[in-house]
């Protein structure tokens, strides 16, 4: 806010009661519906007067009024710099106003983790199918038979053979969930204390298996019995371990934010403010 040359007054739209009259006239006009036609006549007259007044305010040129400028004593004083100093984060003296964290895993890591985990899970599922029922399809059909009653469809008629429709549906749900969970993994795991494999591989799968177990039990009580929970947990843990592994192996990239504006814009070859590691 720059110091301006002193003005005596400023022009603002002049006050006018024309809109009030226009509104009042319209309201009377409408209110005549529930009262008496006389209101309509009176209302129409008032509305026309109001509209005319409004028109005169605008045309041929806007009616403006000078408003005297506040005396100096009433004006807000210039804003003075505050003594209060701003705390900085440990990550960097210059990074006290950053988006945190300074580095993150690219989304691709998350997607890769999801894909890898999803495959691992499918492999465990397939083995379970082979061992328990002698058919890889049993895994998909088994998955479908837990899930489909939840969603209201009837479970697959025959657990051992290949059903293209069910296959597509099961794969679709499986892939979508795997990818989303992969992204969550890549963004959350690095923030947690301790090792990502522990959180991602053991804790998280157990939590959601428990939740899933409760949900299946609540919604389709018979569904819960049909699931061999041991294998189920095994496949979830497979997912978690593999996805967690992918995440913990990926190298995070640094965000551009610790660079100055000109650095980010590519105007400067070397960022003026050093990298965070230089400080901590």
């Amino acid at each position, binding site marked *: 806010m720059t110091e301006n040359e002193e003005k005596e007054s400023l022009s603002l739209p002049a006050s006018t009661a024309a809109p009030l009259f226009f509104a009042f006239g319209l309201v009377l006009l409408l209110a005549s519906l529930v009262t008496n036609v006389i209101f309509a006549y009176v209302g129409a007259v008032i509305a026309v007067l109001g509209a005319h007044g409004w028109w005169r305010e605008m045309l041929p040129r806007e009616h403006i009024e000078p408003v005297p400028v506040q005396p100096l004593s009433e004006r807000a004083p210039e804003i003075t710099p505050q*003594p*209060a*100093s*701003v*705390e*900085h*984060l440990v990550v960097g003296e210059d990074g*006290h*106003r*950053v*988006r*945190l*964290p300074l580095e*993150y*895993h690219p989304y691709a890591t998350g997607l890769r983790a999801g894909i890898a985990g999803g495959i691992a899970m499918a492999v465990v599922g397939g083995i379970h199918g082979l061992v328990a029922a002698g058919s890889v399809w049993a895994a998909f059909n088994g998955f479908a038979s837990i899930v489909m*009653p*939840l*969603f*209201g*469809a009837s479970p697959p008629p025959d657990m051992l053979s290949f059903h293209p429709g069910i296959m597509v549906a099961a794969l679709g*749900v499986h892939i*979508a*969930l795997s990818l*989303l*969970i992969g*992204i*969550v993994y890549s*963004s*959350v795991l*690095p*923030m947690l204390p301790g090792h990502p494999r522990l959180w991602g591989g053991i804790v998280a799968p157990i939590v959601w298996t428990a939740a899933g177990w*409760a*949900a299946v039990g*609540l*919604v389709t*009580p018979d569904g819960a019995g049909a699931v061999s929970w041991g294998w189920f947990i095994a496949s979830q843990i497979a997912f978690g371990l593999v996805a967690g592994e992918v995440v913990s192996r990926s190298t995070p990239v640094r*965000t551009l*934010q610790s660079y100055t504006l000109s650095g980010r814009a590519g105007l400067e070859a070397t960022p003026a403010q050093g990298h965070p590691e230089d400080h901590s």
Partner: protein
Amino acid sequence: MGSASFRIKGGLLSIGIAGITAFLSFLALSAVAAKAFAAEVIQTPTPFEPVSEPAHAIMDFGLLIIWICAAIFFIVFGLLIYTIIRYRAKAGDETTEPAQIYGSEQLELAWTITPVLIVIILGLITAGRIVALDKTDPPEGSLGIRVIGHQWWWELQYEGYDFITANELHIPVDQTAFLTLHSEDVIHSFWVPQLSGKTDLIPNRTNQMWMHPHETGLYVGQCAEYCGTQHAHMLLRVFVHTQPDFERWAAEQQQLATRVASVDLGRETFEQTACVNCHTVRGVTEIGQFGPDLTHLMSRTTIGAGAAANNRENLIAWITNPDHFKPGARMPAMKLSPQKIELVADYLTTLK
């Protein structure tokens, strides 16, 4: 300003603690009181004590959502409480500003996708429940009943049996009752929480709902869509009987009205008054459609859709002035002389 804020905080803390204590003790007290009241409670139509099929499945589904939401609530609320306690301004904090943090792509991503996952799962489950519970065709061997909503009473027509009754639905246990819902005037909604969810009765439309009770007993409910002055007194009673009991009841309902000679005078008064313009008594007069069928009036426990118990005294009061129990009811006070009212009431009490 600094010290002021601490005074306030102190004040707040004490008032807050006092308030919370007051609140908790109030709750405890009221729980005790609720127990005391509970002795008198006869019927709480809660969806959480289901005795019938869709109600049961709905409760399970409802509990699932409640638990998911409760988990979200406690996590987020815990975070909130932790934050305001941990990061409250402390002495000396006025001179410095905390570090300014703009945001975090990772965190924001995480708390976008986690809800997305929850919504996907919850959405799929909801879709499944809708498909499973919404039946548009009567299942094999179900009992069909047409329910017609009126301001402010229920007309019940039993399909396959030839009779009409009102306000009190009787159905057999362990058999699906399939209701077809219509309305004569405005929108109503059929709701007996322990048996099934509610479905609206809409003029010009036909809706369906079903229930498959597995416990006998009396279950109450009421109209759940605002339908005018006496919406509050558009109560419903559902009697779930054993199969033989139900057949017995239905057989009785199929009978024409009984004729008892001793109340012929009352019947004549009834027939000569405008009553017959609105009420049907099968075997006597069948013009009236506007009011409830009175053929077996005394087989019902209440009159006026639950507005009063069904006994001679209340019938007299009702005929004298329906507004006495149900101000605004669509039945006019017939302005009969007290003697005539007695006679009519005598007659009505014979309609077993």
